């Protein structure tokens, strides 16, 4: 609390420029020990400091697996709340009545770094079995500006650490570096532009002194990108558009004469992964726009709905794998790609795993982008009969057609203007992250078991307006939606287990050697047996779980932490499919559990 003094408050309320200037002088006065400086060496070797959680997705491969086992199958029934902390950020703005919490806390040497939906960063001292706020950095996000073009909630999924800085994003398009000791803004840079419908909700990925930023806005006619900012010079190193420019490879997959590619979507709002051996970033690419009128944008619409591999140094595209060409369903592929090495007959197979909105889980050879296996991980898929075993493309995919219809009787189109599809448009799995247990070779998917109803609106170029929805229709929710945790055996590419839940999984997963932690939007945080998925422990937080659990140690003791506060897309757009969740109040709270 000491640093949260009146003096600091005053500065935080002042303009950010003044705060930045002040930070420079304060930084010199406060020595920072080298052990607290985050560098590439530490980010590459997080297994050497298992008590910390340094990456958004735990490691560069997005395993979200902790080797900590003080809390285990035998004693998890004794897990109790150690402490809680109320946070802020539930205020509304733009089209949103309130914010929510979707972030993953970062833990380093007994301190937690968390964000609320409007991008305030909180540093919390977790020593001594309690939480004490050290500082809060409020970026003063322009709520009406950003909130009016955030398709799916007032969201911020967390921070990253680099040097003595905390690196974060704001919904209104900024990358902010905050001094880790003082909480003062060191510098900030505008990366995305809400005037173009661009907002940022994801946590940055830090690779070799660069912050990698993804963007949201495929429902507002953006042309997506991934951008790298040098954390020393604060300059842009590269920016790779996810939709090729005219004449570039892939531009031939946009066959219309209305320049649909210029507003073609392809957002990148989930933090990607990094393979240091190949110096390759793998990132999930979002849906094409307009979402449901795919006749507006004939062609396969690369690189929408793809996993995209980039050279980390240059941003150049190395390979891509597209899941749903000419997507008429809003089945984006924005999810994290989990990097996994599996023993194979001719040496280890280097895989990239992705659980797609379209209901299929994919393993891709990450050395070349070739399909290895794929299978449905949801109970019900109606849009395709399945994947071609060689190519992994939907069986009905016809490369000679410029507008795909898949199973035409259920597919939204200009001749099928109202239709029911499964999975629904929120997907079989949305942004909530998977986890991978490398000992058991099990991959755990947070599943939305869903169908919904789509109405198509035929789009014309004159309907494309700045900062207005560009969706070509919209969903309704006449069907009850439930969820599951589904485990996939990565050695066989088969479902190894499914634990069904009354509500969709909107939070994501943490894996430990013999446990799986997850939550429900109805309030429960739970621990499952890693093999049987049997529920071993449950605690009702009294709020809606909309964020992933993580674990860390302080003074040698293991804690499990999770942010609780239902926001995001669900309680505005999809609540009719889960009417019981209308009772869940907006909230903003950090829960920390221990034995």
């Amino acid at each position, binding site marked *: 609390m000491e640093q949260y003094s009146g003096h600091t408050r005053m500065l935080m309320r002042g303009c950010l420029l003044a705060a930045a200037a002040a930070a420079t002088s304060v930084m010199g006065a406060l020595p920072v020990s080298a052990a607290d400086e985050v560098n590439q060496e530490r980010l590459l070797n997080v297994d050497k400091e298992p008590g910390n959680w340094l990456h958004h997705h735990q490691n560069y491969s997005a395993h979200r697996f902790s080797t900590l086992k003080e809390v285990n199958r035998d004693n998890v029934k004794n897990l109790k709340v150690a402490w809680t902390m109320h946070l802020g950020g539930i205020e509304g703005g733009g089209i*949103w009545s309130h914010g929510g919490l979707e972030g993953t806390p970062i833990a380093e040497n007994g301190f937690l770094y968390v964000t609320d939906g409007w991008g305030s960063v909180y540093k919390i001292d977790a020593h001594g079995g309690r939480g004490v706020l050290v500082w809060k950095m409020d970026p003063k996000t*322009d709520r*009406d500006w950003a909130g009016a073009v955030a398709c799916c909630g007032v969201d911020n999924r967390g921070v990253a650490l680099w040097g003595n800085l905390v690196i974060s994003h704001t919904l209104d398009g900024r990358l902010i570096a905050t001094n880790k000791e003082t909480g003062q803004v060191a510098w900030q840079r505008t990366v995305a532009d809400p005037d173009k419908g661009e907002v940022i909700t994801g946590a940055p990925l830090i690779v070799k002194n660069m912050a990698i930023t993804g963007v949201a806005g495929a429902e507002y006619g953006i042309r997506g990108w991934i951008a790298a900012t040098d954390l020393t010079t*604060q300059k842009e190193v590269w920016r790779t558009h996810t939709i090729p420019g005219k004449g570039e490879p892939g531009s031939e997959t946009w066959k219309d004469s209305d320049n649909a590619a210029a507003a073609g979507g392809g957002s990148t709002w989930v933090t990607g992964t990094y393979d240091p051996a190949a110096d390759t970033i793998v990132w999930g690419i979002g849906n094409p726009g307009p979402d449901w009128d795919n006749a507006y944008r004939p062609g396969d619409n690369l690189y929408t709905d793809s996993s995209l591999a980039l050279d980390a140094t240059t941003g150049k595209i190395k390979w891509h794998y597209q899941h749903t060409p000419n997507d008429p369903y809003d089945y984006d592929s924005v999810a994290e790609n989990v990097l996994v090495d599996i023993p194979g007959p001719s040496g280890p197979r280097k895989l990239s795993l992705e659980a797609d909105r379209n209901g299929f889980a994919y393993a891709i050879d990450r050395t070349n982008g070739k399909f290895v296996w794929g299978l449905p991980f949801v109970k019900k898929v109606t849009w395709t009969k399945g994947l071609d075993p060689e190519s992994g493309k939907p069986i009905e995919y016809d490369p000679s057609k410029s507008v795909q219809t898949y199973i035409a009787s259920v597919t939204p189109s200009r001749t099928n203007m109202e239709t029911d599809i499964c999975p629904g448009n929120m997907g079989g799995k949305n942004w909530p992250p998977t986890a991978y247990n490398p000992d058991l070779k099990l991959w755990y998917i947070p599943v939305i078991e869903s169908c919904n109803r789509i109405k198509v609106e035929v789009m014309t170029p004159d309907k494309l307006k700045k900062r*207005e929805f560009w969706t070509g229709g*919209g*969903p309704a929710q006449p069907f009850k939606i439930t969820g599951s945790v589904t485990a996939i055996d990565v050695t066989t590419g088969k479902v190894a287990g499914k634990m069904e839940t009354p509500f969709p999984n909107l939070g994501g997963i943490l894996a430990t050697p013999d446990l799986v932690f997850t939550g429900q939007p109805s309030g429960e945080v739970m621990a499952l047996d890693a093999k049987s998925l049997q529920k071993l422990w449950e605690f009702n937080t009294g709020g809606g779980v909309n964020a992933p659990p993580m674990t860390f140690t302080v003074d040698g003791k293991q804690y499990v932490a999770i942010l609780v506060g239902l926001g995001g897309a669900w309680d*505005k757009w999809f609540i009719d499919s889960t009417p019981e969740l209308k009772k869940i109040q907006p909230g903003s709270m950090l829960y920390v559990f221990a034995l």
Partner: protein
Amino acid sequence: MMIFNRFPTAAGVLLASGIALNFAMLATAYAQSAGASDPTNAGKAVFSRANCVGCHKWHGNGGGGYGGDALSLRNTELTRDQIIETVGCGRPGTGMPFFMRGAYDEVKCHDMSRQDAGAQMPPEGGTFLRPKDIEAVADYVIVHIKGAGEPTYAECVAFFSSTSRVCDVYKAPAQKPDDAATKMGKGQ
């Protein structure tokens, strides 16, 4: 300042005067410039508070999106009485909620009870509005939104005041702000 800008009303001025004289004066000045005498200001407040903006947007044009297509209040042909009925009773079979306490229960709506409406029952608004509030928001829609054509910068600033960049997109290119912070950020 932000608080007073958002409530440029008599209540806002009273609140301000209770805190500090200079703020009160600022608020008064602002309220006058924004048209304190506009009788539809109460309705504008309801338009925000009842979250009409959540689907119809600040400009009332609605539009597509994940929530389906909220109708354009700019293109609407509804009369004041029809708007009052729609706000109070919602639109059966659509996402337009009802905002009148007791609608379909104590008071029949569209000549229907809750049982009659069945699956067509519209959702309940996030807040209930008193009849005076409903009339006020209808007056606001009639005066400022219905038939207003495409949204303009002046309309946007009148709605939000000038605390946000939300309106910049409606400026003509020559009017674009030379925002020092933005410029600095982009230059880096």
